[in-house]
């Protein structure tokens, strides 16, 4: 190849081509996302009701959030309890189905499509309405219970102690996308490991524990980070099922729902912006912790260990 300068200009060209391919996203980000993001940072230090100009109030919004806003803490509590249940359950379920599908090679693609359907539907308003029908007082679940066991449960969706579980169930039901990622991961596990293990007399469970899980660790980690971020962002189901209130008695008041109420029901745009920034920091914190701890439990094949 030519001299130094030729390769440098080649590199420049390569970079430019790269940016050209990035352009649609980049232009969108710079024009439509970056501006509002920065504006929200400014607004988070103001009192702003949309109709009158924003008034600078310093850190008052943040101080209020941590010292005088019980609904902020309630929203955090609801979101964390939701995630503590939803993320592990969903990942475990997705992994179990993926392992089963991986074995059944022939019908694989059909079932894969079938199991993915809930993930396509799950975020929609129609499904949230359906969920309401299933779990209300005279809903499908209670009718089945009555028919099978002769008793009726409470109105699952309007009882504060159980409402959140119905939302967890709705989230777990949408296990499709982690399942697909797990399936792809399973295909990468070298078959000779399993052959060697079965020659040594290891049973299916032992093989799963000693081969599948460690080899899948990076994929599990990846899925977990994605699900945690998704969990923080959950909004639609709670909004539809509780009619936007987060009720009964704030038992389904997701953080994003609270943020929405403050912004668009009570027009406290400044306070809502501050809530959004705290959410961003919390998500960043959790992702950071995941990455820092990952070296202790995630095994990469090219790892020198």
């Amino acid at each position, binding site marked *: 190849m030519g001299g130094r300068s030729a390769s440098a200009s080649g590199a420049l060209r390569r970079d430019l081509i790269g940016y050209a391919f990035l352009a649609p996203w980049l232009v969108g980000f710079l024009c439509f996302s970056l501006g509002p993001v920065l504006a929200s940072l400014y607004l988070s230090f103001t009192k702003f009701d*949309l*109709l*009158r100009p924003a008034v600078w109030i310093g850190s008052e919004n943040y101080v209020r959030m941590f010292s005088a806003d019980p609904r902020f803490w309630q929203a955090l509590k609801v979101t964390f309890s939701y995630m503590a249940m939803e993320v592990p359950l969903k990942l475990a379920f997705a992994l179990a189905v993926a392992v089963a599908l991986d074995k059944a090679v022939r019908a694989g693609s059909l079932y894969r499509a079938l199991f993915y359907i809930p993930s396509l539907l799950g975020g929609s308003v129609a499904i949230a309405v359906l969920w*309401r029908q299933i779990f*209300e*007082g005279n809903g499908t679940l209670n009718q089945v219970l009555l028919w099978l066991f002769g008793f009726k449960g*409470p*109105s699952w*969706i*309007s*009882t*504060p102690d159980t409402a959140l579980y119905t939302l967890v169930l709705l989230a777990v039901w949408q296990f499709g996308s982690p399942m697909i990622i797990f399936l792809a991961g399973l295909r990468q596990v070298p078959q000779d490991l399993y052959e060697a293990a079965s020659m040594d007399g290891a049973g299916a469970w032992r093989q799963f524990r000693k081969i599948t899980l460690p080899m899948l660790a990076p994929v599990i980690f990846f899925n977990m980070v994605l699900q945690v971020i998704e969990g923080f962002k959950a909004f639609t189901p709670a909004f539809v099922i*509780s*009619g*936007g*209130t987060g*009720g*009964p*008695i*704030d038992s389904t008041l997701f953080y994003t729902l609270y943020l929405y109420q403050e912004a*668009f*029901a*009570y*027009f406290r745009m400044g306070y809502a912006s501050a809530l959004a920034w705290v959410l961003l920091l919390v998500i960043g914190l959790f992702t950071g912790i995941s990455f820092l701890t990952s070296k202790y439990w995630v095994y990469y094949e090219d790892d020198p260990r």
Partner: protein
Amino acid sequence: MSTLNRRQFVATAGAAAAAAWAPSSFAQAGTKLRCFWWGNPDRDKRTRALLDAYAKKTGMSIAAEALGWGDYWTKLGTQVAGGNAPDLFQMDYRYLFEYARRDTLLPLDALLPLPDFSPGDRNGGKVDGKLYGVNLGTNSKAMAYDVDMLAKAGAKTLDMAWTWDDFGRIGAEISKMNPGKYWGSSDNSRWEQGFEQWLNQRGKSLYAADGKAGFTPDDVAGWFDLWDKYRKAGVIPPAEVGATNNGKIEEYELTRGLAAMSFANSNQIVAFQGLNKNKLAISPFPRDKGGSSGHYIKPSQMMSVSARSKAPEESAKLINFMVTDPEGVKFLGIERGVPCSAAARAILAPELDALGKMQIDFVAALGKIAVPLPPPPPKGAGEIEKLLLRTADSVAFGKTSIKDGAQQFHTEAVNILARA
């Protein structure tokens, strides 16, 4: 000066195109209006029919949009703030002052003289001496009930002065008929308007004229206590039955076939009956023996014009069509309450069904015993409405004691008002 020429050319061509397009007989033709309201299926059908007819008549195009009460204010607020307000939008007494004082509404005094409105009906839409909202119909709060169920419980008609004790007695009687599945009344402890009326009966008001809370923690405790007794006596269902009711007509226990009585607004009887097979009727609220009814007559809904509307005169004419024109009045009927124009009432009277006559008679009868219109709710009132929902539910589910719930509601309400 080529740019000027080009501009002139475009303008002329545009005008020619518009003239060719529009039916020539109407000066307003070609005007585009947007109209936005909160409603229910029945109201939406009526309003769309009216707008279609008016559009056809005048050659205008009118974009119509309707949402439920809760979503409506969110969307309206966002649109107004974004400089994209509809030309005409429905307004509530609760929000009139807030919107008018922020200069988002157009004063209508010169455009709409409304000669046959009574001064009271007209003044209900005034803020600081100027008319910002045109009354689309008057209503009062009411008890909506299932006629047959009450008859079965031995209550043929509810007397104008029936009491809270009567309410408990009749309700318990009804709950006995189909235990655990059907109740005398829905739980109204969570309904802000019910609390307000109960305060009115005691000579108090929810909000004072200075925008501060007009009630004490003891008042709240009294209100929760009243409903706690009904709950324990089985007059109203357990908390979980009503906890999903967020105020849409289809979510009410009366509509869902779970209770025989429900607090409502008198004009809502039209919407309730539209969703109920059983025959419904309205009566005043129960009260203490010998006490005041606490009822007042208010504009059920108003129509306002955006301060930024490009067609203020056309918008005002459309409002006039809604409230006084013989043709327009017939489309809307009395679904939004009793029309203020005497001429409109006269046009509607011969065509009213029993339900319509009942509504008009009801408001007329209450007019004689009504208390004055309370001060307008201050900013933050919408949030306090939701606060009562949560606190009353918490008490109903037994998560909070009546005393703590009352104190909590009062403290948080005062905070909300101070912050708004």
